[in-house]
């Protein structure tokens, strides 16, 4: 009577991402075939993080695009681009999320080197990395900072994480919103491992 139905969790997960059942392959298929209990955790984590009250759907999907681009995950990036467009994200906004991810990949490595070495020469010599898109982002200053924080957290740059977090606090971003964005980034990275 109370037996559970197999595979429904993974189908619902794919549906939530707007993905076709054909995408059930690789690691995700492995877990699905084994009826891994972890799929329930994953489904709930992804669903809750994407539907957080502290982010709009459009913002959640733009973060999804950025995380997918950072993880080189074309399947996930395409899925989130479609979902973002359905939620009124413009091509310019989507492109900027990707651009932000690209820039942050340079910054995360460079500034991480600075905070690893802590030598005056590296600290005081100008970075020499052009980052003009930070000045007037089409996504707005606050959301651009939020994206930058999520990517920096994924790439593990302490200096970048602390700087962008402080910038957000100065912008007046509530801590719940910061946490929701970082949680979403973390959960989507766990999804990216399987897709």
């Amino acid at each position, binding site marked *: *009577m*109370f037996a*559970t*139905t197999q595979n*429904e*969790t993974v189908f*619902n997960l794919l549906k939530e991402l707007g993905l076709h059942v054909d995408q059930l392959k690789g690691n995700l298929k492995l877990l699905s075939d084994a009826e891994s209990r972890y799929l*329930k955790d994953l*489904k*709930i984590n992804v*669903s*809750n993080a994407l539907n*957080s009250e*502290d982010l709009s759907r459009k913002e959640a999907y733009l973060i999804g695009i950025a995380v997918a681009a950072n993880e080189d995950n074309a399947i996930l990036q395409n899925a989130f681009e479609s979902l973002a467009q359905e939620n009124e994200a413009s091509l310019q906004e989507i492109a900027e999320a990707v651009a932000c991810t690209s820039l942050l990949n340079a910054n995360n490595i460079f500034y991480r080197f600075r905070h690893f070495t802590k030598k005056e020469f590296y600290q005081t010599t100008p970075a020499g990395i052009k980052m003009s898109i930070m000045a007037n982002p089409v996504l707005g200053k606050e959301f651009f900072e939020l994206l930058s924080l999520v990517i920096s957290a994924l790439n593990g740059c302490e200096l970048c994480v602390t700087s962008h977090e402080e910038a957000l606090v100065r912008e007046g971003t509530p801590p*719940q919103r910061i*946490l*929701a964005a970082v949680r979403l980034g973390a959960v989507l990275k766990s999804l990216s491992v399987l897709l």
Partner: protein
Amino acid sequence: MKNVVLSIGSPFPEFKKMAVVSTEKGKEFYEITLDELKSSGKWVVLFWWPKDFTFVCPTEIAAFNKHFSDFEDRDALLIGASTDSEYVHLAWRKDHEDLKDLRFPMLADTSKSLAEELGILEANEKVAYRATYIIDPQGIVRWVSLYDLSVGRNVKEVLRVLDALQTDELCPCNWQKGEATLQA
């Protein structure tokens, strides 16, 4: 009549009740006991409505049904209940378009003994208020909400409460002695 509602921390009372689990002939009825629920090792979400064949109820029941797999993902057994008999439940399920594909059992507390023991019976008509119980795998009541007859429920709120109750932060990176778990 004074209601004393069975609340958080109490063991859920033993019961044995018929439920409608299908509209397929010969497979309509199933007897549910607390023992079977406990032995499943799962959580239970038990929600009550006042009367079958009324207007507000199907919307709410359909909303719970829509989220059936969300409860399943959370290892929770979803059960609906009212003081109507199993035959009334079956007739209603056959009659109403929104109830044809229900995936959870409709429990019949025909004698009203369970609703009475839970303290959720409305005094005049002796029908159940819109009570929702979350019972943990040990059979302990972990959450109860009680709405008046005309007030509908928010299923997402039930899922949110279930998530919060089930959040055992097991990762050692989260061990901070003396700090309470705060879950958004």
